[in-house]
């Protein structure tokens, strides 16, 4: 039985309310910080008159509520405003920055799950043994280490001291200029393949390895720890012993029964942690000069670029809530008991 349409509509409506709430809070927060963004808009060495005009253009002298209504009005038309820093439409900036973040976060997340799941199973099957101890210790360390610190250490050791991997950028800047590389989808691994430049592809992949491994630390630790405890729990279930006593092999039991128990709760908490992974990717972006949404928002905050801040954070909120809604719907789809 598929999940009902009403449930999906209800979840999406909730998503809308959350996003509106986020926009409101960020809007108020940007307006009440004591800052003078008109200096940025008017440019350096602006006269009093030019600054006054800038304030007028940006509606900075109107009451917050009026500014808010104007913002919502244009938001309803799909207009996120113009970035005060780049002078591009915010939506256009975000669309060009988002693939960088997604490429990093998705790769990191996928690596994390791909490593964490077998590690957790291995630990559960060797409960109390040497492998279990190693997995337990390293995953606790993995979820406790601050991402920016790990990023700095990786960069220092792997890039600067050992010179194994490039220390930053999504693509070799000089190579990009020489070859006239222009992003198509914004996912550089895909783009370099699309234009058939294997040398560029290898460069892009090499640059992706280190930052995505750092982004992977948290989801990997979480996946491994959750998989371990969920597997331990379900391996003690009566039905596991029964299946064994009826002649079903251990590998079949794990593949077709235990994993079914592990995956729904794992998907639920991994869905929640994708938000955390995105934030982690933002920090990694800043350290690795990675052209993504994180860099964009950080630059926006540093230059009081209100439309860019609100727009960027709104996109993150939309992503976050949509993923959660998707996880809930998926959970209902996987677990037949949830549908009852």
């Amino acid at each position, binding site marked *: 039985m598929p999940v009902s349409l009403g449930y999906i509509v209800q979840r999406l409506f909730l998503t809308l309310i959350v996003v509106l709430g986020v926009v409101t809070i960020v809007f108020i927060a940007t307006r009440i910080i004591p800052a003078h963004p008109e200096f940025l808009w008017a440019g350096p060495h602006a006269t009093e008159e030019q600054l006054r005009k800038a304030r007028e253009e940006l509606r900075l002298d109107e009451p917050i509520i009026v500014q808010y209504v104007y913002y919502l009005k244009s938001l309803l038309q799909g207009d996120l405003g113009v970035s005060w820093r780049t002078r591009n439409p915010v939506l256009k900036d975000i669309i060009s920055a988002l693939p960088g973040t997604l490429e990093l976060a998705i790769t990191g997340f996928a690596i994390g799950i791909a490593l964490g799941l077998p590690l957790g199973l291995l630990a559960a099957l060797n409960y109390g043994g040497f492998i279990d101890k190693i997995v337990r210790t390293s995953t606790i360390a993995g979820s406790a280490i601050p991402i920016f610190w790990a990023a700095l250490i990786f960069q220092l050791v792997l890039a600067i001291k050992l010179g194994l991997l490039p220390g930053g950028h999504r693509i070799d800047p000089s190579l990009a200029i020489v070859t006239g590389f222009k992003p198509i989808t914004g996912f550089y691994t895909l783009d370099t393949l699309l234009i058939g430049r294997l040398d560029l592809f290898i460069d892009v992949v090499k640059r992706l390895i280190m930052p995505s491994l750092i982004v992977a630390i948290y989801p990997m630790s979480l996946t491994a720890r959750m998989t371990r405890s969920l597997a331990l729990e379900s391996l003690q279930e009566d039905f596991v012993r029964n299946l064994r006593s009826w*002649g079903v092999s251990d590998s079949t039991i794990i593949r077709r029964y235990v994993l079914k128990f592990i995956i729904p709760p794992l998907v639920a908490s991994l869905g929640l942690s994708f938000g955390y992974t995105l934030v982690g990717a933002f920090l990694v972006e800043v350290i690795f000069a990675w052209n993504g949404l994180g860099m964009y928002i950080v630059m926006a905050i540093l230059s009081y670029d209100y439309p860019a801040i609100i727009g960027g954070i709104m996109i993150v909120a939309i992503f976050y809530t949509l993923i959660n809604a998707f996880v809930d719907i998926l959970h209902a789809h996987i677990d037949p*008991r949830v549908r009852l």
Partner: protein
Amino acid sequence: MKDPMLVVKNLKVSYKLKDRVVRAVRGVSFKLVEGQSLCIVGESGCGKSTLGYAISVSLPPNAVIEEGEILVNGVNILKTDPVTVRGKLVSLIPQDVGAALSPLNTIGEVFADVLGSIGGGRDSSLKVASDILKSLGFSDPQRILKSYPHELSGGMLQRVLIALAISLNPKVIIADEPTSMVDASLRREVVDLINTIRYNYSVTTIIITHDIAIAPSLCDITAVMYAGKIVEIGPSKSLIEKPLHPYTKMLSKSIPRIMKLVELKPIPGLPPDLGSPIKGCPFAPRCPDVVGDLCYNVEPEEYRAGGRSVYCHLYGGASHDTISA
């Protein structure tokens, strides 16, 4: 007499816990021929379930078989790859109907994996499964195979579990408390069903129960276990009508009877702690007929009488000379 189908020889099983070792089964021996059935009766913690798991090769990982042999059809299953034993030589009818199957898998998936373990595709497995279910009285096996466990009643689940246990034609089936988790109204049905499969498949059955009352209707032979050992074993009817061991006597007095108004007599005291060594007869501290120092110091040996074996000093087990030793 026929060759024995199941031989258990001096089996000792213990559990390794963090700080101590619990000796759950402390030397159990018996023999059963093909199609014969044995009831193992005893209080909780007497080792009867451990014995059942040992025979069905499904002991938990912290359990250790310290000594002994289990021969099924002449094969020592403790020295054989468990994959060739489980389900094929020995199978288990589990206890808790509600937790016995994974709630996330359909009955059909379980059958496909059980029957698939001896090869054969999914479709042929499901065909076989549907035949087995039909033989156990399901009128619409296809619907059962598509169902999840929570969609079936307790009685139906019990039958499904029996079907799963016999699906690979095992020589020996162990039923762990088959009547303890079903409604009283279904007990009769379960008892009949186990008897049916026993006759139809001429499979040797072991029924583990704390309910000595069902023993005569279900099994040829009854063994009474106490503190990890068999204290009395013999034909069910005579054992229950004329118990010899004081523990068996007291167990049968604790059965509630519907037709007769008899005072129920619970057995005072608790079984010994299997985590510490036991000296003498383990039942001595609770025994009304205890024979002084002898029972407290010397473990009783086997005493045979009319097809029955009893381990009790009342029947002249050990000689008095051994007391000083």
